[in-house]
């Protein structure tokens, strides 16, 4: 009896947490998305530094003061952007039945490419944010408390993808460390991608493909066989 009650109340809470049922929450989320959309548009048109908060609030249709209630800094905006990206990424992957059956290098390639595709229209913005995130005090830093939830969510997702490959014995057990390795690899790839001037960023495509295949091969052998 106790268990049932607990489960029921949890479900209620969970529902409220993930999907705002109250009108106020829904409005709040909508405003956030409006601001993000307006900001991203302006970043693309005028660049990160050329965009003022005034312009963002005007395009989002809110008062400039209201903007700060939602996002205190551009970093907060970026954090929200990445939260949304991760959420969309996971949903997209879960919905792609064909990709789920693919081999690990293809899965990881598709995931990384999806992420790159997502940030591609906002290259300037991402570039600026990326270098700021390497500062220790940045909220976007991989070590910051603010980005922890986002990081954990992403790593859990990658962990799941790797676990499937472990189960099918495509790779040996790599555990959490494997997910961290993919996370770090992605950061490196974004760095390469930002500097890649080749057509269609094809050098990055080749690098991702080759690295993933090589890494899978190495894992299969279980040793670094130089």
């Amino acid at each position: 009896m106790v268990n049932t009650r607990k489960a029921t109340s949890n479900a209620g809470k969970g529902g409220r947490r993930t999907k705002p049922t109250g009108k106020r929450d829904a409005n709040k989320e909508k405003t956030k998305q409006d601001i993000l959309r307006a900001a991203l548009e302006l970043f693309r048109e005028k660049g990160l530094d050329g965009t003022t908060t005034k312009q963002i609030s005007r395009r989002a249709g809110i008062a400039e003061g209201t903007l700060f209630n939602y996002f205190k800094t551009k970093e907060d905006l970026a954090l929200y952007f990445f939260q949304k990206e991760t959420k969309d990424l996971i949903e997209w992957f879960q919905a792609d039945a064909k990709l789920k059956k693919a081999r690990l290098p293809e899965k990881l390639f598709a995931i990384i490419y999806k992420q790159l595709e997502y940030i591609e229209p906002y290259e300037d913005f991402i570039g600026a944010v990326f270098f700021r995130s390497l500062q220790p005090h940045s909220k976007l830093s991989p070590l910051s408390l603010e980005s922890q939830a986002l990081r954990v969510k992403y790593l859990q997702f990658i962990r799941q993808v790797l676990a499937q490959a472990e189960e099918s014995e495509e790779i040996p057990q790599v555990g959490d460390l494997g997910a961290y390795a993919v996370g770090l690899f992605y950061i490196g790839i974004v760095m390469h991608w930002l500097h890649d001037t080749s057509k269609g960023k094809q050098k990055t495509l080749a690098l991702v493909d080759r690295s993933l295949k090589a890494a899978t091969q190495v894992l299969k052998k279980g040793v670094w066989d130089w």
Partner: protein
Amino acid sequence: MNKTRKSYLAYQFQRPFLNDEGAEARRKDFHGRNAKRVRKELASLRGPIMKLGQALSMQSHVLGNEWIEELSGLQMQAPPMHEALMRAQFKGALGKSPEEVFQSFDPAPFAAASLGQVHWATTHHGDEVAVKIQYPAIRDAIENDFKILRTAGLPIQLTGHLQSSVIREVERGILEETDYVHEANNIDFFRKHLADLKCIRVPSVYREFSCDQVLTMSRVPGLRLNDFLKTHPSQELRDQLGIALMRLFFFQLFKVHALHADPHPGNYLLNDDGTIGLVDFGCVKYLKPEVIRCYAQFWSREWVEDRELYEDIVTTLFGDERGAKDPKVRRGMDEIRRFYDKFHPLKQPDQILDFADRKFMDALTQLARTLVSNKFLSPDFLFLSRTESGMCNLLHAIGSRAATTRIVREYAPRNTPRGRKI
């Protein structure tokens, strides 16, 4: 070091001579299995490792034929692309996904192509097309390969005279293959110039669905060699196709002055009406008139009695410094003459050559070995010989018979005086 370079040339030269039959036998021995395993390992990694494969395949004097055979698979092949990568590359190249560009698109590749892979698709107008998609950034990988080849000091200590020009020629050829716009131009060129040769079918290019890394062409009918042989074709059809192939070669050489120079059997699609579909125009050689003249004179054998003409030919082919007095060059020329006299006699133009005869293929291989060991290699000649021996291999596999001298005379210029451009 010099040996390494030489053997690379030797490899390039021998490649067309490594026929399926011989390779099959070799695969059965231990070394063959070993080589195959290594190639598989390398093939699964490819990419930067392709360099290693290339480096290894150059060591033919150390590794032997079974290694060259296996590693040759690495030479011009890019790593296979899985669907996610293929889509990313297609979108990067044409700005749209395959489904946006075509009415239908088969995500599973139908064949590996030079530097990429080929997919079947249907245009919105209902045309069936073949779409060739290149592996990303392959040009950089190849340029790096050659950079390494050079900076490793391989070219420095040379006793040969033309080797670095051959390397340059090979690099130029390979790099050219990475530009599909160039290939599209080649297709247009051959489609126009081979129009009179009714036994040959050339695809047409869809420029609106092509760029430097994606090439869309009309589908050319025909069976690949192995599938064709399974249909147990009649001897008559075999002869007909053989004659078509020979006509194609000599027509290109003497009338078009350009060669489809990739003798891979998969590039010829055989039809039961005796026509041949010609595909993959990445490797095309536009020939200098003086080289064509020399080749015509190899055939006419006029130089045997004419010292001046002999000197003219070897100077044209090998330059002044190699000179007409080099005994190795003379040995090469004599070997060519003996070979031609035996199989393409001038005085019996109706003599039928049976390409299925093992003796002919052995003699051809022997000729190639003699030419390589006597450094009888110039860049133009290399391409020519590769293509001609590729054709002979194909004729052997098909089992054709043809009056070779008569066919050559259909197209070869008569009485070609020295120095005169044809």
